[in-house]
């Protein structure tokens, strides 16, 4: 099948970029990234600079691929770009490929953006502290099935940033709420629950993401179908934490 591509090309963060036209002739069974591989091989053969794009596992689980295809993150299907296949496009179609657009995701080159803001948010509280030593017994702490399923659904977030890309405000609330909910729903997440909500939200704000308008575009475009109910849980945790968290006490050394 023949396709017309309009791809955002930008040599580095400070350069000005523009959409550049390309033509490819590919097999409809290829994935979207394989289609770009074909284009890049052709560009390399011609001695031109290949199109830079993020990718890693190509199995839909790592969250590295990040393309804004025809006005939607990860394109027309609810999946990651690597799992999007060319059979979902029409022969002769024009496809516009852009990078994620957000102040908190600075562009590095072409379609590659720096998503380390997500890592810094996770470092601020997206963890549980556990003792080292021998592994605890499995199922030592009982967790209701409904809670564990809900936590698992939240934990399915791969941190690709499609929610930020889809949001008209470039808000990261779906990502942050999935990380907060995943741990807030489990007994292991309780000791740090208040601090987690406060610190992760503070880091999210410091990174310069927008605020949530509840349009729901994030959840619709999320390749893992992360639910908006996570945002309600995050807000609840943040409100309660703001109202009830205590400052750290000075503890005397003792005898």
């Amino acid at each position, binding site marked *: 099948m023949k396709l017309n591509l309009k791809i955002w090309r930008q040599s580095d963060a400070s350069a000005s970029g523009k959409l550049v036209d390309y033509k490819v002739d590919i097999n409809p069974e290829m994935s979207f990234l394989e289609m770009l591989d074909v284009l890049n091989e052709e560009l390399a053969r011609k001695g031109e600079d290949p199109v830079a794009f993020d990718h890693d596992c190509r199995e839909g689980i790592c969250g590295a691929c990040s393309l804004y295809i*025809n*006005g939607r993150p990860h394109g027309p299907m609810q999946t990651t770009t690597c799992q999007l296949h060319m059979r979902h496009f029409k022969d002769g179609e024009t496809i516009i490929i*852009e990078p994620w657009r957000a102040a908190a995701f600075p562009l590095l080159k072409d379609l590659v953006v720096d998503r380390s803001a997500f890592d810094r948010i996770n470092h601020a509280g997206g963890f549980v502290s556990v003792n080292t030593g021998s592994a605890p017994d499995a199922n030592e702490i009982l967790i209701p099935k409904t809670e564990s399923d809900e936590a698992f659904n939240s934990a399915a977030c791969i941190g690709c940033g499609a929610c930020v890309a889809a949001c008209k405000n470039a*808000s990261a609330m779906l990502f942050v709420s999935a990380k907060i909910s995943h741990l807030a729903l489990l007994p292991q997440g309780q000791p740090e629950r208040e601090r987690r909500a406060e610190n992760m*939200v503070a880091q999210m704000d410091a990174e310069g993401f*927008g605020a949530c*308008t509840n*349009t729901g575009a994030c959840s619709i475009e999320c390749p893992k179908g992360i639910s908006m109910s996570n945002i309600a*849980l995050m*807000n609840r945790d943040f409100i309660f934490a703001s109202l009830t968290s205590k400052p750290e006490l000075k503890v005397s050394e003792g005898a």
Partner: protein
Amino acid sequence: MNWLVNALTSTIGRKVLMALSGLFLILFLVVHLVGNLQLLKSDGGIAFNTYAKFMGHNPLIQTVSILNFVFILTHIFVSLFLTLRNSKARPHGYAYVNNSSTWSSRNMGILGTIILVFLVVHLVNFWGKMKLTDFGIGSYVEHDTTQDYLDLYTTTKAAFQDWWLVLLYVVSMIALAFHLSHGFQSAFRTIGVNHPKYTPFLKGLGLAFSIIVPAGFAIIPVYMFLQG
């Protein structure tokens, strides 16, 4: 109090302010509509004028009305802060966007601005005239000495003989309907109310509210205009 400032100036804190002020204004709409529907009674305005006198002189209602203005201003100013922050969060837009969200959810600011313009016209037309007359600065509203109240019914009836004012009211109520259709359920999610048992009910209630209440308001000027 530093913690409170930090919480309220965070993105979530600001959204909570939007939600709480919005929910208060939703309650206000109900009270206002119930009173306004007295205009539809064909009793020469006795029911409406009595209601207006009660609302204008009851100390509890007067206190709540001050709160109402405070919440309107909160809703406006916090939304300005949020809109500014949100536009800074994406300095470089997309060449092509294929939206998957509802139109009203993306255009709450435009809808809110229409409502604000309406509010200014509405306040100048009725609330302002009533207050000025009340304070003895001019007599914009006739004083009915037999009943000892300001005849707001006649003022309202006269105002709604202008077709353009009726049109402004109807258009504004349509904007209000779309604003509420998103705002009602969005406010509950923002303050953290979300449960498989109650959220579907709240969504249904929000949809019904966003149709019934603005329609109730819009009927009044249209009815009074047609009545002549």
